[in-house]
C-alpha cells in the first residue's frame, strides 16, 4: 500500500493483459465455451483446492486480522500495545471458554491445509520438467 494510493486524484491502475496466473485461474477454469463430451481435466479438484485454502483464511483469522489492523491505526500506542496484544491472544486461546472452539477451528484449518497441500502437489507437481522453458518464456 503506497501513500500515493491515498492521495492521488485518480486511483485507476491499468494493466494491458490478464495478469498473474492466480488472477486468471478462476476464469479460464470456469468460464468460456466447453464441448461437454471432451472436457479432459478434473475441474472439480481445482475448485476444491481454492475453496479449501479459503476456508483457512476465513472467520477467526479474518476477524483477528481486522481487530489488529484497526488497533494499529492508533500509532502512538502501537509499540507497547503490540506485546500486550500477543500476551492477550495467547492467554485468550489457552484459558478462555473459546478454547474448544479454537481447537476445533484449528483442526479443521490444518486438515484443510493438508488436503490443499496434497492437491497443490497433485496439480502443480507435473510442472518440474516444464519450469525451465517457462522461465525462459517469462524473460522473453
Amino acid at each position, binding site marked *: 500500500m503506497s501513500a500515493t494510493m491515498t492521495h492521488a486524484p485518480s486511483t485507476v491502475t491499468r494493466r494491458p493483459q490478464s495478469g498473474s496466473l492466480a488472477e486468471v485461474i478462476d476464469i479460464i477454469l470456469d468460464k468460456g*465455451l466447453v464441448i461437454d463430451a*471432451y472436457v479432459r481435466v478434473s475441474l472439480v479438484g481445482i475448485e476444491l483446492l481454492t475453496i479449501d485454502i479459503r476456508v483457512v483464511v476465513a472467520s477467526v483469522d479474518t476477524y483477528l486480522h481486522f481487530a489488529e489492523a484497526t488497533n494499529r491505526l492508533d500509532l502512538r500506542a502501537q509499540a507497547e500495545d503490540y506485546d500486550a496484544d500477543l500476551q492477550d491472544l495467547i492467554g485468550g486461546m489457552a484459558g478462555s471458554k473459546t478454547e474448544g472452539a479454537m481447537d476445533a477451528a484449528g483442526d479443521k484449518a490444518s486438515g484443510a491445509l493438508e488436503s490443499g497441500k496434497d492437491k497443490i502437489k497433485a496439480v502443480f507437481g507435473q510442472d518440474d520438467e516444464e519450469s525451465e522453458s*517457462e522461465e525462459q518464456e517469462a524473460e522473453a
Partner: protein
Amino acid sequence: MNLMVHGVIEASSVEVLASMNVPGTTPPESVMHEDVAAVVTATPGAELFPTRANLLHHTRVLEALGARTTVVPMRFGVLVPDAEALVREYLAPAHHGLVGTLERLRDHVELRLRGRYHEPAVIEAVLAADPRAARLRGRDGFEAKMELGERIVAGIEHRRDQDIDRALRALAPHASEVAAPTAVTEPLDAFLISFLVSDGARAAFEHRLDRLGEELAPVVALELAGPVPPFSFAAEQAAAWA
C-alpha cells in the same frame, strides 16, 4: 495426437496464426469448418493436466489471438481426439451459435475492473459509521477483539453492495454488456466486474472510469485489466445487466 482447443475465430482470420509467436511452445494450428475455425495445439496424452505451463499456454494463445482478431475462448481443458471429431461433434452442430457469438464480440473488448479496499481508509470509514466498533477499538481481551473484527468485516460487507452499485451505475451505460459481478472471496476485495466494451465506446468508458476512481478514492483503489480474452461473454447469450 489429441488437440487442445483454445477458441474459435472466423475462418477468414486464420492467417493471423502465422504471425503469432507464443514463446517456448509449438505454434497453434487451425481446424476449419465453413466460415469458422477452431484454434488448437496438438497435445500428447489423453488427459490435460492443469499445470502452470498448460494454463499459461492456453491464456497466452488466447491473448495473442485477441490482439489480432475476434476470438471466442474455450474453457481450459477441452481435448478432442482429432480434427474430424472436432468438426463433427462441435463446429458443425454449434456452427449457428458460434457465428452469432463471433458477431456479438466483433469490435469489442472485455475489460475487467477490480476494486480493492485500502485497509486503513475503509476501517476509518467503518469506524465512523459504527459507534460500537469505535468504542471497542483498542480494547484488550480476546472477545473484544473478535467482536471488533466482526463488526469491521460486517461494515465492509455493507459498504461493498453500495460500491458495486456505484461502479455499475457509472460504467454500465458505456458497455454493451456487463457480466454479473463475481462473488468476492477476500475481505479487502470490493468487486470484480467484467464489461464488454465496443471500440467506439472505449474512450468514454475510460474517461468515466477515471472519474469513478476519483469518487471512490481513497477507500477503493481501482485496477483495470484488459483487453482480456472475452471469457465472461463467450456464452451464446450472456446475461446483460439492466
